[in-house]
C-alpha cells in the first residue's frame, strides 16, 4: 500500500515536474486568415514531431504555448486552410502570429500530408461540433436560404423541431433549453417567419460551435446545449463586397479596413421580398399588406497597439407582418456587444464584454377609432470578464465572472379611448443572474487529457410589485408586495463539468464526460411551432430553476489515415423541474400565468453514431441516433413516464458533397426520423351539435415517419473578365424534398365535410419539390 502510494506520488511528480526542469519559453500570438486578417477560432498549433505539445487558438484567435528552449517547428492546422509551418529558435518569450491561407477551389491543396490530424481523438471535449461555413454554403436547404440552424439539425443528437423549421432539440431537451449566442449575446428567439428561417445570416458568420454535452464551465444558463455563433470581424486588408440574390431574399455584405491591418468593419444585411409581389396586386387589402423580415449585422474592431483590441458588434432583425391598415404584428431581436481583448503577458489573455440583448413583439389592431395593441419582451444587460491563462504546456485555465441583469415585460396592453380594452401594464419583472467559473483543460500526458471545471451560478429575483403564491390547483393563496430592488428569492447552483479522453493508439480513443447545468429562465409555449408570442419568464417563488445532469461516454475511431472519422456516443440525462401546462392554460397576458404551470421531471438517453469523411472529392457524413425522451408529471397520464413530443426513436441523416472538377459541386441531404409523439383522440362525442374529440392520454400516438431528400448543385463560372480579377460568383440550384414525400406537418381530426356522422383524419403537409436558384457574388 505504502509502495503504491509512493509510486503514485512519483508519477504525479514526474508529470508536474517535467516542464519545470527544462528551460522553457513561451510563444504566443494570434492566428489569422492570410487573405482577410480575420482571427481564426480553434486552430490547432502543435510542435512538429511532438503532437502532445500543442495549443488551440481561443475565441479571439489568441494562443499561447510554453515549450523547451531551442529550435522548434510549429504547425498551425485548420479545416479549410493550408497548414502554416514556422521554424524558430526559441530563446526567450516570443510573439509569433500565424497567417493561414484558405484552400481555394483548387483541389490539389487538399492532399493528405499531415497524419496528425486526429484532434477529434485527442481532445477531451465530447458532443462538440464545429461547423464548416463552406459546407453550409453548399448543403441544400429550403428555398436556398443557407442556414446554420438547419445544417446543425443534420448532426446526430440534434433534431429539427418540424418541417422546414429552424428550431432544434438536442439530446431530448426542449427548444428553449438551447443557449443561442451571437457574439456572446443571447438570441432569445432565433427564428423568422414562425420558424421557417433562422435569424443568422450566414454571410456575416465566421464560426459556429455546438456543444451538446460536456459543456465547458464558461457557459451556463441552459440545460441542453450551447450554440456559440461568432460574427466575422471584416477584412482588414482590403474592401470587399459579397452578396446573393435568392428566391425569397437577397443579401449584401460589405467589409474592409478602417485603418489597414489595424481595424476593420463589416456590415451585412438580408431582406425577404415575398411582400413585394403583394404590391403588384390590384386588391387594396393585399397590396397594402406586409410580410417580410430583415437582418442587419454590423461589427467594428480596432487594434490599439499589440496588446489591446476593441470590438463593437450589433445585430438587429425583425419580422413584419401586416394586413391592410387594420392589423400589424412585428417581432425581433436586437443585440449589441462591446468587447475589449487585452493581453497582459504571453500567458494571460483577458476579455471584457458588455452585452445587450433584447427581444420583443408588438401587435396592433385598428378598427376605425378602436385601437388596441399588445407588447411583451425580455431585455438583458450582461457583463462578462474572462481570463485565459496558459501557465505551461498542457494546461489552459479559463476563469471568469458573469453578471446578467434581466428585465422581463410580461405584457402591456395599449388601447385607444374608444377601445374595448383597458390599457394595462403588467409589473416588469427583474432578476440578476450571475456566475463565476473556473476551468482547466489539462493534457496530463500524451494519451490522457482532461477538462474539469466548476460553475457556481446564482439567481436573484428582484422585487417590483406583487408576488403570488399558488396552491396545487393553481389558485392564488398569498399575495405579497415587494419594492423595486428588494430580493424576493435567491437560488444558486453548483455545476460541475468534467470530460476526459484517453488515446488508446493513433486511431482510437475513448472519452467520458459528466456535467450539470442550471436553467433559471423558462420559455412558455404551447404550440407545435415556434411563435413570436412565446413568453420568457424568470424562475420565481413558484417556478423552480431547472437542473440537468448528463453523463456520456464515447468511442472515437479514425481510419484510412484520418480520412474517415467515426464516433459513437452514449448519453443518459436527467432533468428536474420541467415545465408543462394545465389544461387550457392561458399563457399570454395573464398575471397569474405561474398558476397555469405544472412541474415534473424528465429523462433522456440514447446512442449517436457518426461516420464522417472530411477529405477528398466526396465529403460528408452519415449520422444515426437511437434515443428516448420522456417526461413525468403528477397531473399528466396518471403520473407515469410518457414520451415527450420530441421523442423520436430513430433519426438518420446522410449528407454528401461531391466536387466535380472546378466548376461544379453537387450535394445531397437525406433525413429520416420516427414521427413525433403526439396526442390524438381515441373517442368522440357530440356537444351542441359539434363533434368533439375525446382524449385518453397525452402523447400516446405517433406522427407518420418523416423522410425527405434534398438536392443541390453549385456552379462556379470561369472568371470572364480580366479587369475584374477579384470577381467571383456562383449559381446555387436546389430542390427541397425532391421525391415529393407528403410529410405530415399537422393531422387534424374533424367531421367529414360530406357526412357529419363520419369523422376523418386530415394530414396537412407543407413543402414538396420546392426549387430555388440563388446567385452569389463576391469581389
Amino acid at each position: 500500500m505504502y509502495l503504491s502510494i509512493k509510486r503514485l506520488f512519483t508519477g504525479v511528480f514526474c508529470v508536474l515536474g517535467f516542464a519545470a526542469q527544462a528551460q522553457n519559453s513561451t510563444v504566443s500570438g494570434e492566428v489569422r486568415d492570410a487573405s482577410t486578417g480575420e482571427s481564426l477560432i480553434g486552430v490547432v498549433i502543435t510542435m512538429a514531431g511532438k503532437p502532445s505539445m500543442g495549443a488551440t487558438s481561443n475565441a479571439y484567435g489568441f494562443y499561447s504555448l510554453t515549450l523547451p528552449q531551442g529550435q522548434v517547428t510549429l504547425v498551425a492546422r485548420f479545416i479549410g486552410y493550408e497548414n502554416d509551418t514556422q521554424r524558430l529558435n526559441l530563446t526567450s518569450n516570443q510573439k509569433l502570429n500565424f497567417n493561414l491561407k484558405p484552400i481555394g477551389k483548387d483541389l490539389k491543396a487538399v492532399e493528405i500530408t499531415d497524419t496528425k490530424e486526429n484532434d477529434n481523438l485527442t481532445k477531451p471535449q465530447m458532443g462538440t461540433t464545429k461547423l464548416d461555413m463552406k459546407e453550409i454554403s453548399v448543403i441544400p436547404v429550403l428555398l436556398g436560404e443557407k442556414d446554420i440552424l438547419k445544417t446543425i439539425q443534420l448532426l446526430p443528437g440534434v433534431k429539427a423541431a418540424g418541417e422546414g423549421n429552424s428550431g432544434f432539440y438536442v439530446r431530448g431537451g426542449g427548444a428553449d433549453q438551447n443557449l443561442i449566442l451571437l457574439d456572446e449575446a443571447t438570441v432569445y428567439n432565433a427564428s423568422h417567419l414562425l420558424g421557417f428561417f433562422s435569424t443568422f445570416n450566414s454571410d456575416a458568420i465566421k464560426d459556429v460551435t455546438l456543444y451538446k454535452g460536456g459543456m465547458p464551465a464558461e457557459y451556463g444558463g441552459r440545460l441542453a446545449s450551447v450554440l456559440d455563433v461568432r460574427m466575422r470581424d471584416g477584412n482588414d486588408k482590403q474592401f470587399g463586397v459579397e452578396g446573393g440574390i435568392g428566391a425569397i431574399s437577397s443579401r449584401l455584405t460589405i467589409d474592409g479596413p478602417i485603418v489597414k491591418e489595424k481595424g476593420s468593419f463589416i456590415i451585412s444585411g438580408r431582406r425577404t421580398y415575398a411582400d413585394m409581389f403583394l404590391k403588384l396586386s390590384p386588391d387594396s387589402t393585399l397590396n397594402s399588406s406586409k410580410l417580410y423580415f430583415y437582418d442587419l449585422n454590423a461589427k467594428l474592431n480596432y487594434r490599439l497597439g499589440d496588446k489591446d483590441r476593441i470590438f463593437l458588434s450589433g445585430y438587429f432583425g425583425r419580422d413584419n407582418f401586416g394586413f391592410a391598415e387594420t392589423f400589424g404584428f412585428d417581432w425581433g431581436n436586437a443585440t449589441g456587444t462591446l468587447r475589449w481583448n487585452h493581453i497582459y503577458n504571453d500567458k494571460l489573455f483577458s476579455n471584457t464584454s458588455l452585452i445587450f440583448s433584447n427581444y420583443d413583439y408588438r401587435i396592433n389592431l385598428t378598427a376605425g377609432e378602436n385601437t388596441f395593441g399588445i407588447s411583451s419582451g425580455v431585455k438583458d444587460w450582461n457583463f462578462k470578464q474572462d481570463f485565459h491563462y496558459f501557465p505551461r504546456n498542457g494546461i489552459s485555465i479559463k476563469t471568469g465572472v458573469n453578471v446578467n441583469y434581466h428585465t422581463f415585460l410580461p405584457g402591456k396592453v395599449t388601447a385607444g379611448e374608444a377601445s374595448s380594452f383597458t390599457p394595462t401594464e403588467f409589473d416588469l419583472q427583474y432578476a440578476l443572474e450571475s456566475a463565476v467559473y473556473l476551468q482547466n483543460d489539462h493534457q496530463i500526458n500524451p494519451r490522457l487529457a482532461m477538462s474539469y471545471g466548476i460553475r457556481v451560478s446564482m439567481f436573484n429575483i428582484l422585487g417590483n410589485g406583487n408576488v403570488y403564491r399558488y396552491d396545487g390547483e393553481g389558485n392564488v393563496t398569498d399575495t405579497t408586495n415587494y419594492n423595486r430592488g428588494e430580493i424576493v428569492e435567491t437560488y444558486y447552483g453548483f455545476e460541475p463539468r468534467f470530460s476526459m479522453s484517453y488515446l488508446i493508439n493513433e486511431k482510437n480513443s475513448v472519452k467520458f464526460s459528466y456535467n450539470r447545468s442550471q436553467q433559471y429562465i423558462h420559455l412558455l409555449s404551447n404550440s407545435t411551432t415556434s411563435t413570436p408570442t412565446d413568453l420568457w419568464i424568470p424562475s420565481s417563488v413558484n417556478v423552480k430553476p431547472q437542473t440537468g445532469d448528463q453523463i456520456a461516454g464515447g468511442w472515437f475511431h479514425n481510419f484510412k489515415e484520418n480520412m474517415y472519422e467515426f464516433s459513437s456516443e452514449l448519453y443518459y440525462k436527467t432533468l428536474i423541474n420541467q415545465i408543462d401546462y394545465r389544461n387550457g392554460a392561458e399563457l399570454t397576458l395573464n398575471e397569474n400565468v405561474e398558476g397555469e404551470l405544472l412541474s415534473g421531471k424528465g429523462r433522456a438517453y440514447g446512442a449517436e453514431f457518426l461516420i464522417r469523411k472530411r477529405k477528398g472529392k466526396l465529403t460528408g457524413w452519415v449520422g444515426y441516433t437511437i434515443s428516448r425522451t420522456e417526461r413525468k408529471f403528477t397531473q399528466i397520464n396518471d403520473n407515469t413516464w410518457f414520451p415527450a413530443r420530441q421523442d423520436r426513436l430513430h433519426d438518420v441523416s446522410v449528407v454528401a458533397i461531391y466536387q466535380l472538377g472546378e466548376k461544379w459541386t453537387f450535394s445531397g441531404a437525406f433525413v429520416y426520423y420516427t414521427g413525433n409523439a403526439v396526442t390524438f383522440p381515441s373517442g368522440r362525442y357530440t356537444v351542441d351539435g359539434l363533434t368533439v374529440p375525446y382524449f385518453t392520454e397525452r402523447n400516446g400516438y405517433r406522427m407518420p415517419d418523416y423522410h425527405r431528400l434534398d438536392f443541390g448543385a453549385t456552379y462556379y463560372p470561369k472568371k470572364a473578365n480580366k479587369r475584374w480579377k477579384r470577381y467571383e460568383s456562383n449559381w446555387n440550384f436546389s430542390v427541397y424534398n425532391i421525391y415529393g414525400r407528403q410529410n405530415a406537418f399537422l393531422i387534424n381530426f374533424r367531421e367529414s365535410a360530406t357526412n357529419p356522422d363520419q369523422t376523418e383524419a386530415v394530414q396537412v403537409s407543407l413543402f414538396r419539390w420546392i426549387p430555388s436558384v440563388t446567385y452569389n457574388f463576391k469581389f
Partner: protein
Amino acid sequence: MKRVLIFSLLTISVIFSACQKVIDVDLNSADPKLVIEFLLGDSMAPYTLKLTRTVDYFDGGVVPQVSGAVITLTDDLGNSEQLTEVQPGRYITGFTQAVAGRTYFLNVTVDGETYSATSRTPSEVPLDTIYGEYVPPFFGNVAGYVTTAGFTDPAAEVNYYRQRVYINGELQDTAGIFYLVDDRLSNGRYLQFPLFPIFAELNDTVEVEMWSIDKPAYDYYTTLEDIATDGGAASASPGNPVTMMSGGALGYFITGSVSRARYVVQ
C-alpha cells in the same frame, strides 16, 4: 390572441400552398363515457338536457342516447325538481329557470353511477347596441353583413360572456367558434366585437343573445373551443375540456342570464 396566431399560420400555409389529404390513422378504442349537455337560461322554459355517450373516434354511427336516467335539479334555496324524459336521451325541466345570484345543483344517476355539477347564475348585462357592417369578399369568403352587438361591462364584478347569433330565428352554426369574452383586460369598458364569420343578407332579421356565465362555464367553453375545430392539432398538448362534472362524465352544466338585441339588415 390565439386567433391572431391561427390567422398568421393560415396565411403562411396559403403562401406555401399546403396540401391536405385524408389519411388512415390507427386509433385505440376508448371506454364509453357519459356526456351531459345542459344549458339552463333565465326565460323560455322548459329547457332540455341531453344524455349521450362517447364512441370510438372512427365509429361510423351517431352517438348513442342514454335513457332511464334519474335527474334532479336543485337550487340553493332548496327548490328541487326532477326532469322528465320526453324521448330517448332527452330530458326536460318543468318551470325552473335560472335566477341571477342563485346556485344550481345537478344530479344525474344512470346505471347505478351518480354524476353531479354546480353552476352559479350571474346577473344579466344588457346589450344596448346592435348593427351590421358590410364586409367585401376576401380569401374565398362570401360577402355579407357581419353583426356587432355592444354592451357596458359592469366594473364592480368579474364577468364572463358568450354571444350566440340567430338569423331569421335560426341559431347559427359557427364551426367551433364560441364568441367568448371576459373582462380581464376590459373591466368596466364598453365592449363590442364583430361576430365574424357569420354573414347575414339584406332584409334578414338578426338576433344576438348574450349569456352571462360563471368562470367554470367560461373555462369550459374556451377549452372546448381549443379542440372543437381541428382536434387540437395546433396545440402541443391538446386535452379534454376542463371537467365540469364530478363522477367522470364529459360535457357541461351551465346556467346564465340572457339579454337580447335584434335588428333587420337594411
